């Protein structure tokens, strides 16, 4: 673990902003084991965003706990040294602007060197502002960023697995809650249910924030869980910052998949935008901007103290 930053340490800004080489395994864990991983994901998000000088802070930080469980809790099957492995489960980031959390997660899983996180959004990088498949970054299944499309792509993958190849692979996709304003999201939901895709797991990052403000003030999308249920999903609402609750939600999906319930699963994760960094917590203003250097150092210190 990077020991150069701490709540009381004299901060050498160069060191505190440096990436370390720490990676984590994907295996069954106790809920208490995820905090360390989520902190590292969050610190890498801060480090990459402050270097990039632009990008989205709020959503990535707010969803880090979900990513920690999904990628490091034995939920998803993947091989970090071969992300094209045929037997893998797939993850599609429909909310493409949340790319920093996916990049940080993949780097912490060992899919590519962590120093590469420092190239986020820079000329020639594989870590495009929004995921670009043309960059061939291990773990990026598809380009995304035009909201509402990733979930349909994930439905196509799930049809391929369940109805054509008839294998036992799962497909996970994450949308934001503002993204639910895109009508095609509901076309995808309708199709997932129509094709009885019990290998399909829809994660909704319900932080109630989007660029212009609180979600209901911009365009109300509530009630979310009821809508998912009405569209034919087995819907589970979970606290997106409580590891035990996140694990329960994924267990529910696993059971649905194994028991072939003939329904897709939706998990509405209640989260706070910017969670983990107190000055960003639940503030929609942090949707689409990076921290300054001073703010980044303060965030890294706070995260180090919370390990």
């Amino acid at each position, binding site marked *: 673990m990077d020991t150069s930053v701490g709540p009381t340490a004299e901060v050498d800004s160069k060191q505190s902003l440096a990436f370390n080489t720490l990676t984590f395994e994907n295996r069954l864990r106790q809920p208490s084991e995820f905090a360390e991983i989520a902190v590292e994901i969050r610190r890498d998000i801060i480090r990459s965003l402050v270097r990039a000088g632009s990008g989205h802070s709020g959503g990535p930080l707010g969803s880090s706990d979900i990513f920690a469980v999904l990628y490091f809790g034995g939920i998803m099957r993947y091989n970090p040294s071969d992300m094209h492995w045929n037997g893998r489960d797939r993850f599609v980031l429909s909310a493409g602007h949340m790319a920093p959390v996916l990049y940080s997660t993949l780097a912490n899983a060992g899919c590519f060197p962590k120093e590469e996180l420092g190239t986020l959004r820079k000329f020639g990088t594989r870590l495009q502002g929004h995921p670009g498949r043309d960059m061939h970054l291990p773990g990026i299944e598809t380009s995304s960023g035009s909201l509402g499309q990733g979930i349909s*792509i994930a439905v196509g*993958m799930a049809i391929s697995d369940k109805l054509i190849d008839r294998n036992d692979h799962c497909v996970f996709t994450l949308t934001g809650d503002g993204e639910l304003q895109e009508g095609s999201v509901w076309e995808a939901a309708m199709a997932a249910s129509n094709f009885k895709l019990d290998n399909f797991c829809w994660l909704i990052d319900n932080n109630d924030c989007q660029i212009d403000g609180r979600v209901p003030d911009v365009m109300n999308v509530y009630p979310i869980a009821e809508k998912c249920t009405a569209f034919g999903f087995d819907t589970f609402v979970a606290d997106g910052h409580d590891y035990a609750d996140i694990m329960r939600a994924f267990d529910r999906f696993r059971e649905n998949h194994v028991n072939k319930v003939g329904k897709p699963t939706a998990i509405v994760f209640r989260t706070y935008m910017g969670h983990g960094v107190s000055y960003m917590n639940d503030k929609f203003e942090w949707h689409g901007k990076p921290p300054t250097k001073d703010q980044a150092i303060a965030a890294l210190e706070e995260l180090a103290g919370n390990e």
Partner: protein
Amino acid sequence: MELLGSKPTRHGFGEGLVTLGERYENVVVLGGDITGSVMTQLFKDKFPDRFFSIGVAEQNATTIAAGLALSGKIPFFASYGAFCALRNADQLRISVCYNDVNVKIGGGHSGISVGPDGATHQVLEEIAYLRTLPHMTMLVPADFEEARKATIAMGEMIGPAYIRFGRSPVPLFTTSETPFAIGKAHVIKDGNDVALIACGALVWESLLAADDLAKSGINARVINAPSIKPFDFNTVTQAARECGCIVTAEEHQVHAGLGGAVAECTAKNAPVPIEFVGVKDSFGGSGEPEELMEKFGLTWKEIAAAARVAMKRRDKGSSGVRSIVEP
């Protein structure tokens, strides 16, 4: 080229799909509720396990197709061109073309020859859009047989592709022996006085125009250009150099379609006067196909008249001698 009969290009698409289904087990088809109209029903009847009905949701169908392609399938999605080229424009741009995946789109009922359905269903703008998309292949076959060949060819190439076909029967004049290749335009009648470059239903009209011009001693070259993208710069440049003037003809807006592709090519390689036959910045309307083709000036008569104008401009030695014409 002689007239061999009359058949809709959509039938060629439907039959081509069945051939692909027989050859490749990873070819799958997505339906958009009008499977009978766009002839995907033929595939559905033969390969029900590889057909998926998505309903009236073209954005979703296009993006689901991208997901299927990312999982190693070769998905075809067909609907009316108005809905599977433009309503889903962003899905085509990001999920299909930026991803550079094997998604194949069949755009039916294209142009005004759809007839009675009227302007909402008469797509006249999609050639312009699709040919600006990186990685996209865009094909406009001239008759049934070419549509069949083009469908098979787009299934056998790697990458995104779109085929434009129509509803009404159109003259059949190519055979299984007639050459077809993505990226190629073909001289189907030789001549050096003026080049008539056309796609779709207007290829036959161009042949009729050439017959008419021959009566006045004008020897027109007729070029069938089904591959809008990739475009055959060689054949078009050669025509410009050897004929010195060009007429383009298409069942599409005169802006940015085949005419635009020809103009871009010749402006760089061999600037010559060009006359554009197409719909002149207007929407279609209800009517019988023949009535509409007549009303919007998409027959051999307009092509022949345009050829005479193009030749006159060439013979005056400058393409800028007449007053400004819009569009």
